[in-house]
């Protein structure tokens, strides 16, 4: 199985949704529009992908530049890039200290992450190797995100706790 197929399978098993889209601003914005519910939509500046790839997303209805606690708290959809994907676990890796990516990926109800296909690695351990991803996994402040936030503390499994209720990964 290719890394991208394995990633898709694992991420789906972890209750994320995955789709593959051409790497153009319009295609990405169209993909977001297809899945995102209406409401305030925060776009975090991408770190790894060219900034202009998110330009069309910034023109989607509801799009805004989040700056305050209150604005971020009201955000329904959040778009970030992900600098790595992990095939075995279906995780994506998002830098949390670049611009507002940390907040957007956490405070929105619906997180859409855009992942470059060539940055999918096999195992979580690959993020700790200097010869993978330019060694960025050893330097960056980041989070492995594996599916939406979840809890079993209230009895049955519930998805959507403090973090997003849904995670959608757009592999470009």
């Amino acid at each position, binding site marked *: 199985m290719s890394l991208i197929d394995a990633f898709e399978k694992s991420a789906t098993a972890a209750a994320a949704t995955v789709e593959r889209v051409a790497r153009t601003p319009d295609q990405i914005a169209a993909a977001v529009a297809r899945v995102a519910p209406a409401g305030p939509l925060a776009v975090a500046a991408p770190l790894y992908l060219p900034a202009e790839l998110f330009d069309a997303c910034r023109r989607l209805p509801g799009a805004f530049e989040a700056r305050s606690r209150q604005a971020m708290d009201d955000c329904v959809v959040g778009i970030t890039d992900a600098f790595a994907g992990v095939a075995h676990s279906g995780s994506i890796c998002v830098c949390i200290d670049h611009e507002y990516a940390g907040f957007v990926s956490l405070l929105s109800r619906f997180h859409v992450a855009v992942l470059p296909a060539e940055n999918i690695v096999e195992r979580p351990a690959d993020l700790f190797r200097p010869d993978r991803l330019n060694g960025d996994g050893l330097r960056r402040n980041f*989070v492995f995100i594996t599916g939406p936030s979840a809890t079993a503390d209230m009895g049955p499994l519930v998805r959507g706790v*403090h973090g997003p209720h849904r995670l959608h990964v757009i592999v470009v």
Partner: protein
Amino acid sequence: MATPAPAPESPRAVANKSSKRTLVAAIRMALRIESPAVRRNTQTFNRNRYAATSALADYDQLKDRTRAIKERAIAGLPELLATLEASVKRNGGHFYLARDAHDATHYIAGVCTRAGARLVVKGKSMTSEEVGLNRVLQEQGIEVAETDLAEFILQVADEQPSHIIAPAIHYSRERITALFKSRFKTDLPLDTGEELTRFARERLRQKFLAADAGITGANLIAADSGSIALVESEGNIRMTTLLPPLHIAIAGVEKVLPSRADFAPFLELLAASATGQKLSSYTSIITPPLHAAPVLTNSDTAPRREFHLVLVDNGRMSMRQDPVLHEALYCIRCSACLNSCANFQTVGGHAFGGETYSGGIGGSWEAGTRTLEAARFSELCTGCSRCVTQCPIRIDVPFLNSTLRQRLNQRDANKIAQLFSTALADGGEVAPLQKLFFGRYDAFGKWGSLLAPLSNWMNAIPGARLLMEKFVGLDRRRELPPFAKPTLVEAAKNCVARVSDPKAKAVLFADIFTNYGSPSRGLATLRVFQSLGIDVVVSDTCADGRAALSQGLISTAAGQARHTAELLRKHIEDDRDVVLIEPSVLAMFRLDYRRLLTDAEGQLLFERLRDHSFDAVEYLWAFMQGTGLDAAKLFPAARHPLGKRLFYHSHCQQKTVGSAPATEALLRAAGFDVATSNVECCGMAGSFGYKKEYYDLSMAVGQDLFQQVTEAESDGPRVLVATGTSCHEQLASGLKRPVFYPTELLAALLPQLDG
């Protein structure tokens, strides 16, 4: 004469189990109130962990790597702490090494006060529970909001954690609903997991947005970079590290690893061992302070980010010097030893736990960070060994608990016990009477057998049983197996026939349980072996050390181990393999003797014995496969007088040493219809279920097994088969039916010899 026991409904009232009486009260409380939720939740964790670890192709290699990293880290801890301090300061953070709970809490309170913090949000941290952080902050007028939903429940209920990763595991959904309805006067619907979660999330979101400071723990810390790993599923820890400008991480000093690259093998192992996931929803790898991340405010001025790493000693540096307990410092708090434990599954951490830490590993932690007496709940570790293969760092949890027991024995022994100790326990090892009775069963067995049937007749008198309960704590509802006359060794003298041209040579070890208690198992095994052309002799009987070890009589066990290994060495030199009836003895030979025969010569003895010892049926099955013998022809199940439908229960230690599948395979190959149990342990666990304090717990644990038998018999009765001696007693007492040893079943299918 009796003063009333503490109010049994309140977990707080039984958190400190320094006295045995409180421990017993806690078991009663947990069985009455918490058991159903604990059972369901821990067993779910347990199933998920088995599935997840079996999906890790390099599970064993990962365990080797994490073990090696932890050994190196703890050995070089002082140097690592110095490196870490420099790293944190280089990053612009503050580093504080706290001597004890008071030091840690007052440092943190000082940081919060200086920052003008009025509201602190907290992620789950067992270390902060250990040092009692919340109380100290609240005394300073600071509001503390626990944001992990389980910790939120506990804060509302004012209870201590009952599990190290799922602290409110003892709460069912229904009990949470009742709790919230009584504490929050609300008309909101709170009748589903979704509704309860939404209710808590909305309350806590406001706390996150208003918080002045965030306090988290740390799962892993890297000395080379000052990076920390934080593992969670809810997102509250990410909120806590990101939203407030002030972040304080508190952790035990043992969490430090040499480098960030060392995190690699831990992450997947931790997730698989803890919640049975490939990774938890969020695994953050951060090097605070997060200066590059903006601070969200509702005003124009954003404060600068501030980070404090507070590492807590609180007894850990002394644990590091402890010849045995230092191994507990390798623990990464995954809870595999809790979830794989039959006793824990039944009562949870409010009975099998102290004020903070719970389960098999919890005793060492309470002893290390509080007092030896605080670890008294580690009595609930039966030494069944199911956790040993489940620990991702390969910590020998039962041996830690035997060591705690040994140390507690010395404090607990009264004058009479000391007198008996001198006479009974080799090397003058001191213990209370109950421990001596069960730990030196070899001595009682010898006399009991010599005096049988008088000793058995005594056993049957109600008055005598009461006396036994009073003096040695043997529960009057339990019946000790009758002492046999003749013993296995005596009986075998008449039936060991030399096999001409043997295809294999073996020695059957006459362990004390088989020899004095149930020679028929040994005799049946001899018959089966001889009928297949195996030359088998019976060894002398001697105590192998299992009983002594289980009661914390470790020096006694070590002496017995040496004697046993020497005895069997002669047989091994005579090219005989050692064959065992009792799985707990096989586990001694394969696992525990490594710890008991510590010198160089002892290690050689151990290795040779380990490599030549087999479960009787495991040996038989390997022999039959090696020589091409057909089980269906030799043991045609269809002709069995008891029928071919069986229920087979394998022994806990048999599962751990991997000898259980052979019995199932042989019985199936012979044509038996075999249903099996999948419980971790029957609940008897050697002497545990005989003790008056633990009888109720033992029977409660057994309910799962009894239930599985009932379910397997929905389409008709089955013959009960078990390998372990204590499993026999438990099954027989729970189901009131005979239980057979596998070779007893097979021997009935052999051609009848004359006479």
